[in-house]
């Protein structure tokens, strides 16, 4: 049908998969453009790893669906004949081969001549800032270096799609930051289509063109990182994005993106985040990020609540204050550093800083 326009890098249609009785993927729909960096996030068990394994060809969906890469149907092809390359969570570098031989491997199995594959491996290692390490053994490398070798090994085959399985999973914080920037830069330079899977919110927000939130095998939201963070369509997505202060109620007025929610403790205003327009009378949730709560709120905070301080931790840039309210524990990050334990405090947030969405849907 789409023979005139170039087909997208990846099309997934109603892909379903189950392990015995347990549903891993439930009619997943996905389309990825060429050169896009798509991140699939979700808690463990949400099906993100199954999806990645199906894309690479290690598993075949057993509940139907279609999978096309560059417009070509892929489900019948074994992994070695798919134009994708994976950077595995624990890198899966070949321990009996040197760094150079690892990087060359994808070319060696394609029958590329030795001098040519040497040159291309050297180039890939150069890009990954590991020039001249060809002779090293894998066991001699640090975690960060292993990850770079895994990237070089995957990139040297010039895949249509690069799959990253929890690429930062095994690295510690400072290395993570450095590599996030590096992967982003690399992807922009080479123009490769990248699909990564992670359970880390920071990485997902920082690195992606687009974010897909999976939950129990279903796509909960598929949008830009900003949209997912600022307009999470479900309570689950809001919680996953760190908007952990939540309450539920009944939507009472809706107009122009601004809605209100009626709870046992009064009415609260916020930005509408549902997929469909808000309908007064339906159940809704309100979610707000801990950083957006303010103690001793002024008039600008149209939403106000009272809570007893359970614990207050110093955290450097601010304190993390746990407030017991009638909606459960609310957490505020506040610049106010005094000891507050046990006191009853008023706190609030602006309508612009909080989202209200549909509780019934999905």
């Amino acid at each position, binding site marked *: 049908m789409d023979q005139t326009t170039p087909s997208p890098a990846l099309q997934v249609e109603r892909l379903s998969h189950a392990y015995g009785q347990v549903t891993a993927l439930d009619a997943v729909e996905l389309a990825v453009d060429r050169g896009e960096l798509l991140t699939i996030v979700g808690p463990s068990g949400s099906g993100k790893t199954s999806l990645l394994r199906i894309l690479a060809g290690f598993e075949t969906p057993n509940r139907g669906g279609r999978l096309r890469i560059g417009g070509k149907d892929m489900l019948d092809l074994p992994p*070695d004949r798919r134009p994708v*390359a994976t950077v595995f969570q*624990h890198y899966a570098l070949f321990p*009996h081969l040197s760094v150079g031989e690892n990087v060359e*491997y994808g070319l060696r*199995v394609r029958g590329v001549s030795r001098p040519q594959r040497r040159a291309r491996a050297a180039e890939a290692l150069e890009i990954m800032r590991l020039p001249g390490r060809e002779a090293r053994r894998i066991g001699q490398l640090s975690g960060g270096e292993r990850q770079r070798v895994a990237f070089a*090994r995957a990139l040297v*085959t010039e895949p249509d799609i690069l799959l990253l399985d929890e690429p930062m999973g095994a690295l510690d914080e400072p290395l993570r930051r450095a590599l996030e920037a590096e992967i982003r830069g690399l992807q922009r330079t080479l123009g490769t289509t990248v699909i990564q899977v992670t359970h880390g919110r920071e990485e997902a927000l920082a690195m992606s063109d687009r974010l897909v939130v999976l939950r129990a095998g279903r796509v909960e939201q598929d949008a830009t990182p900003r949209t997912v963070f600022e307009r999470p369509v479900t309570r689950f997505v809001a919680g996953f994005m760190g908007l952990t202060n939540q309450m539920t109620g009944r939507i009472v007025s809706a107009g122009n993106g601004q809605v209100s929610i009626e709870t046992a403790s009064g009415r609260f205003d916020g930005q509408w985040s549902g997929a469909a327009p808000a309908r007064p009378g339906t159940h809704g949730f309100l979610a707000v990020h801990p950083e957006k709560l303010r103690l001793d709120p002024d008039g600008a905070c149209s939403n106000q609540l009272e809570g007893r301080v359970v614990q207050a931790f110093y955290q450097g840039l601010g304190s993390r204050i746990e407030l017991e309210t009638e909606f459960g524990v609310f957490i505020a990050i506040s610049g106010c550093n005094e000891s507050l334990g046990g006191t009853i405090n008023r706190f609030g947030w602006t309508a612009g800083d909080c989202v209200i969405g549909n509780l019934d849907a999905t």
Partner: protein
Amino acid sequence: MATLRFVLLSGSAGILLLIYVPVLWLALLSVGAEPLSGLPGGFTTVWYLALASNRNWVQPAISSIEIALCVALLCMLAALAAGRGLPRMRRARVPITLAFLLPLGIPGTVTGLMLFAGYRFVLGIHMGFWSLVLSHFVWAFPFALISMLVVTSRFDHGLLDAAADLGASPRQRFWQIECPLLMPGLVGAGLFGFLLSFTELPRSIFVSGAIQTLPLFNWAEASTQSSQVPLIFCLNTLLTVLSTAASVAMIGLLGRTTR
């Protein structure tokens, strides 16, 4: 901790002494003037020269090496197949592994007898080279399998996924990734096969037919108390030195390639 260390070290030394003193003693006897007295002394190479001119041991040695090589090859192939397959099975894994290992519990002479009866009458195999190979294989296989399972049960199947992902065909994955990584187990299986076949006696007694292996030859010569016994001392000193050197070389080579 210091006393524990002392106990461990002196215990180890004791065991090694128990093993190696007889070996050294045999070596000394083989160059002694009166080996049959059981006491070394009076260095001479006369027995080695006699061994070189006596050719009786050559045909048994060749038979033994041929059989041991066949057994080693069979053990490597069978242990590779079973060692790769077993960790992938779920329910059948434990019972099948047990079934493979159980022949260890059957006395060698019994096995020999049974193999004789079974191979001869049921499977219709004539006694000789192949009955020796098969009975030695049945004896050595459990050990070869254990050696293989130690390696395959730790094998990271993610590496095969990674190779497939990079475009390697099943054949390439097997030869370029799996085989090199399973090499320690494979070499172990081969060594067990070779050594256990090369030194096997009780089964051979029953299933050898017209073929004489080196252990059979040794045994026949040694138990007859003939004048050939000093030559047996020489032959076995040589065999011990050779098989030790070969094992050390093989394991050393393996250590280097897998580092």
